């Protein structure tokens, strides 16, 4: 070890032990090191003593202040770097240099004041620079920014309202099991649940519903309630309860995006939460099991999608030309259903027939989440053009499906009622009849 470094270390530890910190053990270790060094001799040791004595005569207090400020700066800087996540080594160097220069001038008061000011300035600068809003959510796949409905709702609203925040994915972290996602962090406070987060963002003046009238605001609340009551149970069933989808898509995805050993627990926990939610809200008594509820929730979900399609019509968004919170909610619910490669998806097939909802989803992805490639926009339209039924017939078919569900339940006799037969059934007998007439016996 370099003798000068030894000398400096000894000086330092002597000062620390003079302050009562470190105690005898550090001094002992230092002297051991010093004595082990073959290049050091008594003269160095004697000089060191003189230097210490000189300092102590000159201003023992200033040396103590120097070390105190040095240690304080180190601690403060470490706290700041932990809070802000930034490396602040350059600031440490600046602080140390300032302390050294000022101490050399042997001016106790200035030393203390300057150190305090430097600490305050550094902390203020970093407080102003740091602490943007931070959003935790599940990661993305299948051309979507996130595969989780609630996270998508918040992400879409953030894009619509122009809020600036840092998005952090919880994939491969312990937050997959500890955090309730999505979660917004701002200045020490935490907000969960999409509705609460949207309210919070509105209070921060990021408001996408600014131009809505009072009635449109009321309609927004109503449609959001419709989505939550009718569509969400079926979505949860499709992704988490349906055996084929869960085994082939959902569980592998969430397992591969959770760290070991949480990958054994996270998908199962989500699945059991989904099942209990469906049973508690949709099953009328505890005796019903999931198969009896399935038919009900899927028919309600299909009806809900039809209603949304009727409400959207030919417009780009639900309220005019700019997207609002209702658009965010609808997008969050239907985007995973459109984009996920589900092995068994009766609801997905139904949704693909509703062109305007597919178009709505793709418009939002293209305009607001530009990392989704533009070619993928063709996903929905080919499936629609493959459907040979024209628009009027499609609408009639949907109405017929609804009516036949009602009638089958209530009254068997009405099923054969002629006004409820679809148009194409009437053409078939006449085609057959004309064939019979045209072909000679």
């Amino acid at each position, binding site marked *: 070890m370099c003798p000068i470094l030894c000398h400096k270390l000894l000086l330092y530890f002597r000062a620390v032990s003079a302050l009562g910190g470190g105690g005898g053990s550090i001094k002992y270790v230092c002297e051991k090191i010093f004595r082990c060094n073959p290049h050091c001799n008594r003269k160095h040791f004697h000089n060191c003593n003189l230097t210490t004595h000189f300092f102590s005569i000159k201003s023992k207090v200033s040396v103590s202040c120097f070390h105190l400020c040095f240690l304080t700066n180190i601690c403060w800087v470490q706290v700041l770097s932990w809070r802000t996540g930034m490396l602040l080594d350059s600031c440490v160097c600046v602080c140390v240099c300032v302390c050294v220069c000022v101490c050399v001038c042997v001016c106790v008061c200035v030393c203390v004041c300057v150190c305090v000011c430097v600490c305050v300035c550094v902390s203020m600068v970093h407080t102003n620079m740091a602490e943007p809003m931070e959003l935790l959510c599940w990661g993305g796949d299948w051309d979507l920014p996130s595969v989780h409905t609630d996270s998508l709702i918040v992400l879409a609203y953030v894009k619509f309202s122009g809020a600036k925040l840092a998005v952090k994915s919880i994939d491969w972290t312990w937050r997959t099991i500890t955090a309730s996602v999505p979660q917004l962090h701002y200045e020490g406070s935490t907000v969960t*649940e999409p509705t609460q987060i949207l309210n919070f963002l509105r209070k921060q003046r990021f408001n996408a519903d600014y131009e809505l009238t*009072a*009635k449109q*605001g*009321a*309609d927004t*609340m*109503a*449609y959001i*309630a*419709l989505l*939550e*009551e*009718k569509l969400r149970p079926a979505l949860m069933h499709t992704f988490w309860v349906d055996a084929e989808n869960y085994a082939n898509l959902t569980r592998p995805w969430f397992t591969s995006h959770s760290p070991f050993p949480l990958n054994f627990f996270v998908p199962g926990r989500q699945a059991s*939460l989904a099942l*209990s*939610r469906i049973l*508690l*809200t949709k099953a*009328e*008594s*505890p005796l019903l099991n999931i198969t009896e509820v399935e038919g009900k929730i899927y028919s309600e979900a299909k*009806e809900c999608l039809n*209603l*949304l399609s*009727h*409400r959207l*019509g030919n417009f780009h968004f639900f309220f005019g030309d700019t997207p609002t919170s209702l658009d965010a909610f609808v997008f969050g619910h239907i985007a995973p259903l459109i984009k996920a490669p589900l092995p068994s998806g009766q609801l997905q097939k139904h949704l693909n027939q509703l062109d305007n909802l597919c178009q709505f989803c793709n418009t939002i992805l293209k305009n607001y989440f530009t990392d989704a490639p533009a070619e993928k926009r063709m996903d929905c339209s080919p499936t629609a053009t493959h459907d040979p039924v024209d628009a009027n017939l499609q609408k009639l078919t949907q109405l017929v499906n609804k009516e036949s569900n*009602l*009638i089958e*339940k*209530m*009254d068997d006799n*009405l099923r054969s009622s002629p006004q409820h037969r679809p148009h194409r059934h009437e053409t078939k007998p006449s085609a057959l009849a004309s064939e019979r007439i045209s072909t000679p016996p």
Partner: protein
Amino acid sequence: MSLAAEAFVSQIAGKVPFIQVGNQVVSELGPIVQFTKAKGHSLSDGLDDVQRAEMKAYMELVNNMLLTAELYIQWCDDYTATEISRPRYSSPYSWPLNHILAYQKQWEVRRKMNVIGWSGKSLEQVYEDVSQCCQALSQRLGTQPYFFNKQPTELDALVFGHLFTILTTQLTNDELAEKVKSYTNLLSFCHRIEHTYFKDRGRINAA
């Protein structure tokens, strides 16, 4: 108890109201509406698709907010549950069945609240949610006689049922009723339907 209040209590119980036609029994609001529609009587025939979508959406809003809030206040608020809900629910039964069924019902409702995320809410937040729901309904109703202008629809029936029950059921405090009464057009809506269709059933207490 008045008819609407009976209907409300039965709705919470899950089985009543029901109608009996010949040898068919149909229970609960949704299936009853579908049944009458299949028989050719429908209140929402005059609505186009967009209006029908709006009507269904508002019905879900009422179910989601008002019904859940009523369940919360009855069963998750300890004072109300002890003083009113459990005694009322267990009154037809003898000991020990009354205790068992009452606690079972309370436990069931609390589990449901937990799952949909309402268990973390305080009573004030629930009142606030009810107030927002009533504000949305009030804005939708405006100055019209019914929600879809001239004719009453299923939505009017549902809203009337809930609001009438809130206004007439005696609870430990009247804050919920006061919140509803602050929306004058909703109050006059309830009065109007009561006088038009339920003339001989008594009056709502005036504010």
